[in-house]
């Protein structure tokens, strides 16, 4: 069946970032035939951490231990926020479904809790997040002690290790930055075995190298003498690509203590792992991927009730039809939105974009202004069924849906809700989409 070239689908998902991937996955789970257009390059910028909602209100920088309590506050105070428009039970189910699928594809996450977790970042800040890959969870466990200042718990003695030549990751920086809060934090630097003559190291190359037993053993042997009384070892995200679980387990066995990874600057290994796992998931569920394609034209036929997509980037071009379309094209870096000096437009259909009145209002004078930048809350507005609106304020087409970061009235970077926004809105929109298709066919 996979060799067959079909050109008519239930759903066409435009975009292959987190939202597009989630939408395609959920469509396939519901038994809908699905084609997905987009490279997946956006996923490479992911950290592997699945944020749900950590900060609300963003302007106050208030961080929440429980993402569900944060969602409840959001629903009260910002009912237009896309995440506030999805019921928490569905969000929970959507996350479970997404993480389970990743796990089946070899990318294991720690069981989802009711609470947010704290993880170290490569610059030495602590990030609040929800879904934590298994390879990073020992760090989150250690940081639980930091979060409970009234208990006598002190975080375990921990050795952070980095590699000469991996430029954006200094174990000494993290240890120095956190020294006053985590007294038992030490650091050490080693030469990565087999890369002694290579000036600049890239995490992906190291991750691939660590999938071979010999490099792994030599690396462990270099770390062991530095261990001392450390109860825990932290490393940059280099513990394998597709075989992350096996490499991680080997490090823990070889060092005799829990080992955790710290996400590095994108594009990074967790992004590669995520993309690899998602592609496995899509392929296993029969989602047709058009990685190199882009949508040149998208037209809707009211009589037949189908959409026609003309694709570029496919030899000879390709025309496919779909009964429903999901726009998951992202914002500016995803190319879903395009801005020139005069304003912002939606890139494929020219849908109206909710946006500030003039460019002077797009950005604050201070990059870190707590209120965030107004341009980041620009985007598509939809009806209750996640259908983007046209100029008249009505759904642009009965079965055109918009999900993820292209939606207006949210600032995922400040609220730390990027994955949550993608997964929750994809789930909710797919529910509407399935209902509609079912209604029309049944």
């Amino acid at each position, binding site marked *: 069946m996979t060799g067959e070239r079909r050109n008519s689908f239930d759903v066409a998902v435009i975009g292959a970032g987190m939202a597009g991937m989630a939408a395609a996955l959920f469509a396939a789970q519901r038994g809908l035939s699905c084609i997905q257009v987009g490279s997946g390059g956006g996923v490479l*910028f992911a*950290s592997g951490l699945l944020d749900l909602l950590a900060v609300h209100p963003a302007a106050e*920088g208030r*961080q929440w231990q429980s993402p569900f309590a944060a969602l409840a506050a959001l629903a009260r105070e910002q009912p237009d926020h896309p995440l506030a428009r999805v019921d928490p039970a569905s969000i929970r189910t959507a996350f479970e479904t997404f993480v389970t699928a990743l796990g089946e594809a070899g990318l294991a996450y720690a069981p989802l809790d009711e609470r947010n977790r704290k993880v170290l*970042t*490569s*610059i*030495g*800040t602590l*990030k609040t997040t929800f879904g934590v890959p298994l390879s990073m969870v020992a760090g989150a466990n250690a940081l639980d002690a930091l979060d409970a200042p009234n208990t006598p718990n002190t975080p375990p003695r921990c*050795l952070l290790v980095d590699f*000469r030549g991996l*430029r*954006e990751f*200094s174990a*000494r*920086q993290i240890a*120095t*930055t956190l*020294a*006053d809060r985590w007294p038992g934090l*030490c*650091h*050490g*630097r*080693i030469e990565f075995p087999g890369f002694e*003559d290579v*000036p*600049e190291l890239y995490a992906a190359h190291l991750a691939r190298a660590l999938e071979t037993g010999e490099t792994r053993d030599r690396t462990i042997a270099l770390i062991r*003498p*530095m261990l*001392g009384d450390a109860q825990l070892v932290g490393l940059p995200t280099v513990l394998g690509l597709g075989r992350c679980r096996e490499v991680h387990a080997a490090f823990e066995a070889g060092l005799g203590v829990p080992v955790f990874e710290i*996400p590095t*600057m*994108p594009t990074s290994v967790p992004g590669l792992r995520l993309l690899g796992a998602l592609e496995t998931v899509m392929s296993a569920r029969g989602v047709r991927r058009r990685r190199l394609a882009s949508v040149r034209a998208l037209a809707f036929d009211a009589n037949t009730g189908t959409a026609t997509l003309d694709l570029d980037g496919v030899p000879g071009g390709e025309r496919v039809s779909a009964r429903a379309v999901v726009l998951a094209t992202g*914002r*500016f*870096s995803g*190319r879903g939105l*395009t*801005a020139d*000096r005069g304003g912002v437009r939606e890139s494929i259909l020219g849908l109206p974009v909710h946006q500030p009145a003039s*460019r*002077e209002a*797009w*950005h*604050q*004078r*201070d*990059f*870190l202004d*707590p209120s965030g*930048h107004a*341009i*980041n809350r620009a985007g598509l507005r939809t009806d209750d069924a996640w259908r983007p609106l046209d100029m008249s304020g009505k759904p642009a087409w009965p079965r055109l849906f918009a999900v993820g970061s292209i939606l207006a009235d949210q600032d*995922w*970077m*400040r609220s*730390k809700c*990027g994955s949550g926004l993608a997964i929750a809105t994809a789930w909710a929109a797919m529910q509407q989409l399935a209902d509609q298709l079912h209604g029309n066919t049944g």
Partner: protein
Amino acid sequence: MISPPRIQTQVLIIGGGVTGTALARDLALRGVDCVLVEKDDINAGASGRNHGLLHSGARYVAGDREAAMECCAEGEILKRVAAQAIHDSGGYFVAVEGDDERYIADFPLYCARAGIGTRAVDVATARALEPALSDRAIAVFEVADASIDPFQLSLESMAQARSLGARLMRRTRVVGLEREGRLIRAVRVRSMAGGEDVRIEAAQVVNAAGAWAREVALLAGAPIDMTYSQGTLLVTHTRLASRVVNRLRRPGNGDILMPGGTVSLVGTTSTRVDALDDIHPTTADADLIVEEATRMLPALATMRFIRAFAGVRPLLGSPGAADSRSVSRGFALIDHEDHGLDNLATITGGKLTTCRLMAERAADLVCRRLGVTRPCVTATTPLPAVPECEWTEPGRSAREWMRSHASDDTLLCECEMVPGSTVDAIFDALRAAGDTPTLTDLGLRSRVGKGPCQGGFCAVRTVAHLYQRGDFHTQHGLAEILDFFGERWRGQRAILWGEQLAQAELMEALHCGLFGEELRGEGLRRAGPPAAPNADPADKSSP
């Protein structure tokens, strides 16, 4: 009572821009002892926020012949004595359809009268040599414009002055002038790093504070009538022309395009501003420049811009209000004798091109007052090249890195190819001079952060490198990322559309989405200052 720390010198110079540093060098070469205090850093004001245009003078031939002739003469001098800081690109003056034909016809005449060399160039030939020129160009003249790196010029001037005994006090602000009769007895200065105020007792004081000259003079009770004009420039993503390209018309907005290594700079604007504490490029400035300059260079309509920056031109008020001994309409030397002061001088106005001459005139006045008879030698004495002052030159870091490719010397700034060894050289030189270097100091002395990422990636890598060296002992390094990237940001917001907006979004996803820097902003800013490197007890690496 313990008296405050004192410094004695012959001349105190206030302001470390192109004029102040040139003055320090001029005086040092005449054997005069001097101290330069600068509230921020070398060229932190308008001296570092301009085109870097070494004027042939042709721009001013119609409106201000005296200034034009000064530019012409000084341009030639600087090309001889400071060649290392100058890229002698040559320049075009270009008129397009609709421009004043009378001005076009008169232009060669005006130039001839001012003694400025021009040559008419056939439009087709000019477009073959500069393909970015509009097909609506109707007249082109070649002139001797060039580009000059003001940072290299000031850093090397100061380096030579220091080698001859001059002292530099960075991040030190003047807080008071003690006046006694017709003399300023002492100038009280305060270091931003904290500590006690210092009394500087100087026989002569020169106010070279640029746009801040009015504030400094007021401390001495000497009013100067000054207005401020903000000028904005945009930096393109790629270089558009090899020469300086000027619009052939009376000076206006958006009529100069400068070569700047791998980029071009286009500007400027002229907006009256009342205060100096909130100078920033606006979206309206950017729109004005793009719309005007596009008439000469159509590719600017779709060009990606990576940065905007704004500086303030100090303009003296009505000529009557300023001292009548104004040297020319281009710049002014005020001796303050009418204000009842015999040992204060203010040198202000002028242009980057004439900074050496301004310094010479100010030094002449100071020397006359001091009874020093040695003449100025800066018009004939070459400015010694100093390696650690030349990292602002585009491509230099990359060349050095390629030449001596050491296996442990990795690129920290990938856009501009700046390796760790360059960062080390600059930090070590500042430390050797008894200074406490910051990431922002590094930005001023190198190409770090000048590319499309505008510091988003390279600040992170550079700080990791500096932590590893042991330059930071606390969270302070993170605050440095914020300071550095925050400063770069202020230069970006006016030009964020198209591709650069996508880039900025990516940077925010990294710095806020992943690192959560905005959530720790306050805590980070409370961190202490960086200290000298030392051994690290938490280091478990085997020796």
